[in-house]
């Protein structure tokens, strides 16, 4: 890891930051001074700086968690640069010819249009790509409905009251090591506010804000759905992203007030490293939502990328009759490691949660489900159903399940089931007998295995997620 960082750093220096280094990219290291500078860069009000500093001081006291079933070299947090301005046009690849052909092959298979390919690969396309107008149209439509959707750095200035009220209300600064780090150094992210009773007219996606990309490795998202509102938010991209960052420590906070509903879908396909496990993203993310009375939060995730994933999208079911859902497909191959799952904390009466997790391990990867279902004494009549299925492809991988069940209310019902198996020989035989080759057969069986989760995804996402899985599984059979 440090080697990778060193390499990355060396490269940036090679790129020749001579006079601009002071203003564009901070030298590696983290202290209060760096946080002052990040805050100053963003022209933040004093309360925001104070908030960051508090987080930083807490972080210094904390230890990096070691309980996850993942293994990665020691991260030297002082060797990372905590602010890097977006790459200027001249540093970007001039055309697709300069982009890794492997990456392009994947885009091709996913059927991504050429302009989008260029954008995803980070080609300097701003003059060509006509997305700006698209973005503006969407913005106007949203404004009409009263929906706020903007970078969080902008929200700090424009809507300080909302940000002050909700930032850190679900994931407090001291929540965990990575969240504390994020609180101290986050550079940007999305802020969404849906007013009372409004049904967001379209699915929101970070995709629409892609012109403001490069929010850095410490992204922060805050979504507030006011009473009776509804929003569906899509995060990520189905195509692998060119990204020079090694460590991603993002935080996502969702607040669903009375009768509100938030649906949060993620397709994560960061660079997983090569077959030997060199390189790749460390994805250490804290995602959590709080549900007030009759509210509902639904997390859907398809995780196929990153070298190491440490991610537990959770729901705090605070209000009576609130509902939490978690649908997940996690696929690991090569030497990828994923430790992912959810927490459902039932506080209110008649709260309900559903957890469907599908883990697929291939190659020499390790895939773990780690979850917690807690029924507090007040969770009268609460209900949970959990199903975790793992599929193993090849005899060098691992699939693990670590579910915690804590119940303190007799009227609450908790059910947990987990199974692990391989792709059955019978199914393979049936498919092959009907003329499918082994690879196609596996891909079809895996797709069926994941169906329960895919059907929760917005349509176009579901189609791409299926394709993505197919591509990821290539070469893992036989």
């Amino acid at each position: 890891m440090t080697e990778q960082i060193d390499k990355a750093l060396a490269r940036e220096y090679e790129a020749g930051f001579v006079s601009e280094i002071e203003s564009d990219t901070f030298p590696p290291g983290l202290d209060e001074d760096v946080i002052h500078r990040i805050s100053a860069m963003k022209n933040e009000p004093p309360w925001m700086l104070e908030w960051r500093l508090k987080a930083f001081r807490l972080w210094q006291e904390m230890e990096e968690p070691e309980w996850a079933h993942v293994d990665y070299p020691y991260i030297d947090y002082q060797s990372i640069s905590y602010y890097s301005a977006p790459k200027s046009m001249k540093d970007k690849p001039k055309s697709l010819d300069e982009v890794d052909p492997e990456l392009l092959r994947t885009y091709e298979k996913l059927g991504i249009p050429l302009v989008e390919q260029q954008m995803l690969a980070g080609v300097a396309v701003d003059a060509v790509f006509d997305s700006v107008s698209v973005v503006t149209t969407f913005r106007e439509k949203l404004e009409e409905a009263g929906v706020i959707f903007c970078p969080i750095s902008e929200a700090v200035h424009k809507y300080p009251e909302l940000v002050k009220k909700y930032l850190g209300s679900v994931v407090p600064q001291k929540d965990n090591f990575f969240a504390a780090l994020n609180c101290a150094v986050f550079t940007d992210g999305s802020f969404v506010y849906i007013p009372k009773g409004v049904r967001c007219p379209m699915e929101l996606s970070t995709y629409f804000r892609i012109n403001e990309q490069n929010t850095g490795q410490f992204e922060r998202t805050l979504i507030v759905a006011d009473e009776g509102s509804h929003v569906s938010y899509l995060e990520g991209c189905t195509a692998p992203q060119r990204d020079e960052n090694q460590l991603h420590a993002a935080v996502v906070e969702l607040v669903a007030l009375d009768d509100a509903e938030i649906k949060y879908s993620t397709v994560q396909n960061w660079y997983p490293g090569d077959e030997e496990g060199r390189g790749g993203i460390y994805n250490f993310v804290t995602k959590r939502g709080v549900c007030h009375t009759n509210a509902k939060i639904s997390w859907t995730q398809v995780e196929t990328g990153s070298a190491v994933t440490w991610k537990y999208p959770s729901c705090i079911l605070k209000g009576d009759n609130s509902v939490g859902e978690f649908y997940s497909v996690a696929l690991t191959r090569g030497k990828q490691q994923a430790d992912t799952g959810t927490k459902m904390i039932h506080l209110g009466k008649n709260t309900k949660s559903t957890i469907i997790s599908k883990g697929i391990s291939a190659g020499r990867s390790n895939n773990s489900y780690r979850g917690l279902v807690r029924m507090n004494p007040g969770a009268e009549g609460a209900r949970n159903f959990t199903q975790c299925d793992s599929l193993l492809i090849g005899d060098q991988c691992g699939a693990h399940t670590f579910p915690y069940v804590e119940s303190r209310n007799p009227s609450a019902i908790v059910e947990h089931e987990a199974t692990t198996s391989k792709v059955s020989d019978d199914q393979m035989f049936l498919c092959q007998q009907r003329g499918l080759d082994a690879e196609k057969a596996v891909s079809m069986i895996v797709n069926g295995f994941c169906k329960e989760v895919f059907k929760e995804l917005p349509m176009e996402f579901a189609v791409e997620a299926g394709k993505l899985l197919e591509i990821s599984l290539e070469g893992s059979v036989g």
Partner: protein
Amino acid sequence: MSTWLANAIVRGTDVSDWLSEKRQAALGKLKQQSWPNRKTEAWKYTPVSVIDRGAFSPAVNDVDANAAIDAIDNLDASALVFLNGRYCEALSCKTLPEGVSITSFHNASAAQKEWALAQFASVKPDRHLFGLINDVLAEDGLLIDVEPGVQVTTLLRVVNLFSEGIEAHSRILVRVGKGAKLAIAEEFTNSTPSLNTSFAEYVIEDNAELEHYRFALQTGSALSVGGGHFKLHDHSKLHSTLVGFGSQLSRVDVDIEHAGQHAYAEKNVVYLLDGKEIFDLHSTIEHAKPNGTTEENVRGIVADQAKVVFNGRIHIHRDAQKTLAELNNRNLLLSRKAEVNTKPELEIYADDVRCAHGATVAELDTKALYYLQSRGVSRQDAQIMLNFGFINELVDRMPNEALATWLRSKLKVRFAQMKVSSPQDALVNS
């Protein structure tokens, strides 16, 4: 650091006998361990501070006049008695089944010592803190050896008795020779204030069969931490039953290692908790070799303000192809203040396996209750019937009928003490 642990380490330094080499190794590991707190994963839900609060004195060589063994009707058994952690010949059965040799640590022959040194603390993994303490402080123990091919029909009852205020550490090391068969029951029944650690290691050789029972029926302020550790060789069979009542601290660690191929293990666990009792079971099944089978059923009822902790781990190693492993944990919660913490874990590194686990926590099925009531059974009786039936399914699986009958009578008494009325009553009555 706990003063009790510090004290135990000091005492351990003085123990000197033919097992010293093993004890010193354990002492070294013990010194590196820290006293469990809420952040210690293996002790997350179970506080051990109660050990420091109690004042216990190490066992002395005496005979307690009150010591008596529970008589079990129609049972063909030989009793082996530990009094305060020391093997008590006076209370133990003089005649032993043929082909079984039983020797206390003190009287071991050179050959036995050689074998025991190879096995002692090797079946039991190092990670158990109290296991290490037991390695160091269990001054007396039994070596039980069943000759190859011998089918022992008489049950060996290892009865553990404790006097008030005593701290005791006992150990047994059992070998079931190739093709042999043995049935053994470890019994703990006291409720007097005391502290004991009791660990048992079993080596089940090729084609051998072990029928095992552990009755962890201590209650009240009898603090108990113990373990049962099994090593299964090729084609061996284990049928193990664990019954637990809770006390201020009642903890059992179970490890079953499939060290040979085609081994079969069935483990059934029942717990019934009341008052402010705690029962904590950590079980680990290691499938190190191919073609093994494990079935684990864990069921319990938790009433009043009691707390149960169950951690059931199944670990399938890289080579253990064609493994079948199933674990099932079902809990009935009877009160608003009771607590269930369960964590069934699967850790799998082989692809051609079939593994599953399940866990449920709920109260009694209202439909079943309604069915019985609609047929004229009183609500109270219906609740007892359903609760008993829930547990009895596993009691029925005990191969020894006389023991099962004895256990049912114990459970009956327990049910009568427990507040079996379910929380639904509060709703019905209000």
